[in-house]
């Protein structure tokens, strides 16, 4: 390792690359090049692979190795799904005094919209779940519900940023970026942070939601497509087979090796040679990862891929499982995209909206949990479900069942990855308007995710702008111990 200069922590951006990558690779790289017949005169150099995604050790033994974040974009209504409010029964249309804050601003009260779906108790734990999620309901004994979530903003733009990066200001790295920064990737042939979007479009603010902010772009989320080449620029243009490309690549690598041989000791050049080999491998591993032809019919059916309604989200859930199997650290699936009723943002017709989105996701999500469990993967895979906020108990408009945004109280849930099942933590008031018992903030959720991955949320930091930046902010944050097995 070349860094000799002792100083406190003021490493510069360039040194950062040197150090993150440092080490992993001398051996790996020279063996890789050796196999391919490269490295002649330059073999004496202590080549370093600058791959910042090289695996790194956690702070302590992790419970989870991967995270699947099922992002219900737009904000599902908690009181219509997993936060049972029996006292609202029969209250539909009654005026109530309650403080709310959404896109329509601050209000002091309004007309109650009684939850539109019937609730039933499920599992040994007896969790009340609405009829929107009959299949997920079968898994309540594996799930920890966080019924007292809160966030800093009830406005999509800043709330999305908060759920994804911990801050309402844009420019900070996403949770998936932090995970990859902290742990690296186990599969160098695949990105460590994968995002799969809804066919209706991306969420608002687009790529800002999976940006690596002030960290290198290496840590940003890579959008995976379910049709065609999964990653941008992955496939050679038409008319160029992989075999043909190998020929081109060999020619490039030969020129590069000759170039390097006269510049012995230049690690950057060696790394760039290695990056071509990684890119080439990615061209075969990534398509393999998204190729569902090896999955049996029973599995496809389990995920609902044989039904129009659930085909899309089911496909993405199955891909998520396949990516976890291949060592991808952090996978984010969006349910819903674009605007209005293309996502969970039920301002108009609550029933139409939520029936649509729950209908598309309930079966696939349940399938994902079953499948992970039967394969023994659930213990090591943390599944997170939720949106950027919840919805209000009262109507947004004079008529109709639409609910405005609510960041004072909402529900998210976690399963697997060392999380206790059959638990509900925290409560909202009897209208579900705001958290009352054990209020939780987005940063607690983030802290729990990091903790399950074996990282101390208060230690995982990145020096930028004169500060040790942390996903969870400057003040110490505890993970949610009550839901940790």
């Amino acid at each position, binding site marked *: 390792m*070349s*860094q*000799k*200069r*002792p*100083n*406190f*922590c*003021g490493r510069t*951006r*360039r040194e950062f*690359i040197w*150090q993150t990558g440092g*080490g*992993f690779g001398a051996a790996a790289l020279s063996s890789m090049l050796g196999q391919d017949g490269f490295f002649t005169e330059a073999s004496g150099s202590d080549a370093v692979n*600058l*791959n*910042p995604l*090289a695996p790194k*050790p956690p702070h302590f033994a992790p419970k989870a*190795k991967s995270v699947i974040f099922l992002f219900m974009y737009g904000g599902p209504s908690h009181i219509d799904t997993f936060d049972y409010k029996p006292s609202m029964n029969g209250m539909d249309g009654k005026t109530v005094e309650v403080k709310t804050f959404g896109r329509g601003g601050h209000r002091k009260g309004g007309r109650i919209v009684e939850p539109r779906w019937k609730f039933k108790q499920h599992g040994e734990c007896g969790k009340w779940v609405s009829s929107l999620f009959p299949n997920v309901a079968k898994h309540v004994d594996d799930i920890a519900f966080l019924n007292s979530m809160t966030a*800093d903003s009830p*406005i*999509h733009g*800043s709330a999305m940023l908060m759920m994804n990066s911990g801050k309402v*200001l844009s*420019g900070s790295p996403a949770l998936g970026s932090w995970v990859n920064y902290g742990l690296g990737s*186990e*599969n160098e042939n695949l990105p460590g942070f994968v995002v799969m979007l809804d066919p209706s*479009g*991306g969420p608002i*603010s*687009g*790529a*800002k939601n999976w940006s690596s902010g002030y960290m*290198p772009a290496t840590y940003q989320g890579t959008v995976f497509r379910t049709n065609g080449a999964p990653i941008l620029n992955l*496939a*050679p*243009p038409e008319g160029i*087979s992989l075999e043909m490309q190998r*020929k081109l690549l060999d020619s490039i690598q030969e*020129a590069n090796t000759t*170039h390097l041989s006269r*510049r012995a*000791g*230049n690690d*950057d*050049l060696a790394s*760039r040679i290695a*990056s*071509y080999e990684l*890119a080439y491998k990615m061209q075969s591993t990534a398509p393999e990862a998204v190729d569902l032809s090896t999955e049996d019919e029973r599995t496809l059916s389990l995920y609902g891929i044989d039904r129009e309604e659930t085909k899309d989200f089911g496909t993405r859930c199955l891909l998520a499982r396949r990516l976890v*199997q291949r060592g991808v650290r952090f996978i984010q699936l969006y349910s819903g995209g*674009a605007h209005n009723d293309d996502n969970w943002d039920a301002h108009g017709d609550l029933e139409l909206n939520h029936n649509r989105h729950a209908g598309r996701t309930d079966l696939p999500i349940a399938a994902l949990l079953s499948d992970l469990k039967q394969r023994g993967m659930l213990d090591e895979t943390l599944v997170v479900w939720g949106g950027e906020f919840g919805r209000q108990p009262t109507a947004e408009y004079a008529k109709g069942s639409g609910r405005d945004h609510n*960041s004072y109280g909402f529900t998210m849930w976690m399963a697997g990855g060392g999380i206790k099942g059959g638990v509900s933590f925290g409560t909202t008031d009897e209208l579900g308007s705001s958290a009352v018992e054990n209020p939780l903030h987005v940063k607690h959720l983030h802290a729990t995710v990091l903790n399950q991955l074996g990282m101390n949320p208060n*230690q995982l*930091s990145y020096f*930028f*702008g*004169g500060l040790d930046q942390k996903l969870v902010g400057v003040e110490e944050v505890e993970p949610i111990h009550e839901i940790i097995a």
Partner: protein
Amino acid sequence: MPSYPITKWFGLAFAIGSSWALNAQDINAQDQDINAQDVVDFVQDVKPILAKHCYACHGPDDAEGGLNFSTQETAFAEADSGAFAIVPNDASASEILARVISSDEFDRMPPEGDRLSERQVNTLRRWIEQGAAWDEHWAFKPMRESPLPKVSDPAWATNPIDAFIYDSLNSAGLRPNEPSKRSDLLRRAFYDLTGLPPTAEQIQEFEADTDQDALMQQVEQLLQSPHYGERWGRHWLDLVRYAETNSYERDGAKPNAWKYRDYVIRSFNQDKPYDQFIAEQLAGDELDEVTKESLTATGYYRLGIWDDEPADPLLAVYDELDDILTTTSQVMLGLTINCARCHDHKIDPIPQKDYYSLLSMFADVTSWGHRGNQRINNQIDVSSDELNARYQANDQAKREVDSAMREIEQVGIAKMSAPDQRATEGPPKQRQEVLNGKLQDHLDEEQRARYEELKKEKQRVEEESKSLPPREMVMGLAQTQEPKQMFVLQRGSPHVPGDPVEPRFPEIFGSESVQPVAFESESESAGRRRALAEWITSKDNLLAARVAVNRIWQFHFGRGIVRSANNFGQLGTPPTHPELLDWLALKFIDLDWSFKEMHRLIMSSRTYQMSSQIREDAVAVDPNNDLFWKYDSRRLSAEEIRDSILFTNGSLNENVYGPSFYPQLSREVLAGQSRPGSGWGQSSEADQNRRSVYIHVKRSLLTPLLTAFDFPDPDLTCEERFITLQPAQSLALLNSEFVHQQAGRLAGSMSLDKMDDGEVVRQAIHLVLSRDATAQEVKRGCELMDELRAEYSITRERAVELFCLSVLNWNEFLFLD
């Protein structure tokens, strides 16, 4: 599933976040023999230990047991216990040492967490034994003119830069590299100053030029090229987080942001003195002479992110101001004052009060806008007097004809029925309906004729109005506000204001500046920003010149003399050549803050002209090249790569300035947006061939080819770009539509029917790498094309295209020696 591999490297690999930084330091320390004779540096060695391990309880916020290690006075004082933590020259009397090594759980310090390492304890002990000197951080001391070192090699004695560098190498027993190859040198100079390569012909000419001044003549020409401003302006745009949209849900456009970008490029091309450059951006509306240019410069205040519907509007106002203060202080002063927003700076002597006092300097800066009117605060009308006069005349004519028409209308209306009369007093649309239908009937002939005339006149005036050239607008500080009283905000929250503060400069800059700033103007603007600009650019400012010359050095050598270019505080990296830094800073002021003079000075040095060859003997002593025994080779930046590809095939459109263009983005890239294609325009092919600095910077849709090669996130100031080497880059250069299109153009630029394959190879290498091909390259290139054609039955044209593509992927094309 693979298991978690653990190797001995992890302590280091993880050291970036700085929570583990000390681990790295410890590991490093084990390789190094601590020489007991070495003088311990308080700032570098001791203070970080105190800050990291003791400040939490015995620091600026808390002084448990009456002990506070953040100032000399309190650290040396008697604690509540009666003991003295630090007794200079007396290790055994210094309680701190007893405590950090104590194994008693009630005595031990720190009470929780990791113990100090043996090395850290030794550092403390030796520091105390050596007298516990409580020195000041180098950057908070005035600049010092050091005598030029005397060096034995006369070749290294001509340029003062060389004398400093040679001297430091000499002390380490090192010698500098030989001068670079002429061709490498010219490439280096071209890219450094313009971001574009020289042609093969230019290199040949230069190699043949035996004039001693040949290089400097080239430098001179490059400095006169308008492309100089494009390259150096881009460095500044990185620093000030230049973007053309606001981020957040709507990511709305910033109209005329490109005029600020052009202002920056032009300023560099004109070699505008840096002090003036700063003053225009901070106070372009408050200067003695306010011009269109200086108003455009205030676009500086309009570059940041802006949430059009913040959840906490009051906090959002302070977030916006913090963004400006953070950028200003890091970019112009190398200070992370932003760390003191919520509490006193933990390491640097910047109390929270200083943050808010400095923030008061920006108290008249309005927000980007508000939802109701997103233009009024940020669009300044800078139309010419002549155009203003034409608009005024037109307005006047419109008023006159309207008034004359109304007069006749009222005569007619007076004769109408009561409901009709009432209707004309309603909304304009309703009035017009009545007039259209019934006015005629209530006018006499003369009135009717006159009214018809007036209608024609009105039409003429309206047409004239439409034909006037648009008003000229620039983005900037269009509205200021009455400066509001600022307070220290508890934990940074505007909902919990504490003591009021007055505008003033931070304490670390000396007692004189602690006085509230006096303002010249009370009327139109507060004059505070002008006072700030004058203070920053005053010759005695401790940091401004140092920070600026450090950046100039950084963009020539790949790293600053202070590597942490935005942070000259104690958490930054210390200068590798402090005397040289001060010498350059004083010289910069002396040369009237001229960038171009600094380029001349630096590029004429042997230090700059050294080869990048890696020598094992030097690596053994100085692996990081801290002492500059070689020139560090570098990968081209994102813009340089894209521009060079366009340049080599002759399609680069070298037009300078003007509105930004939209490169074609693929459907899959646009699919990431909630409204695919929204906010992304279509540009002509000619525009798409322009240089990358003119690409529209949309915060939520950055151009993938640029981000793959480390174009920075524009939300926050970027002092230095990352240089990553990752598979996504290789994929972009192997498979992207852009690169294939450009390789096709490169092949298309050759007259293939008149050339054999050997000539094709020679021509491609000539164009892409600006040199002659070797025999081996010609042979291999021909073989590649033969094989591609034979094995994959492709046309010769296609084979040539693919060969061209392969050369664009060569390391030689992407790296500078």
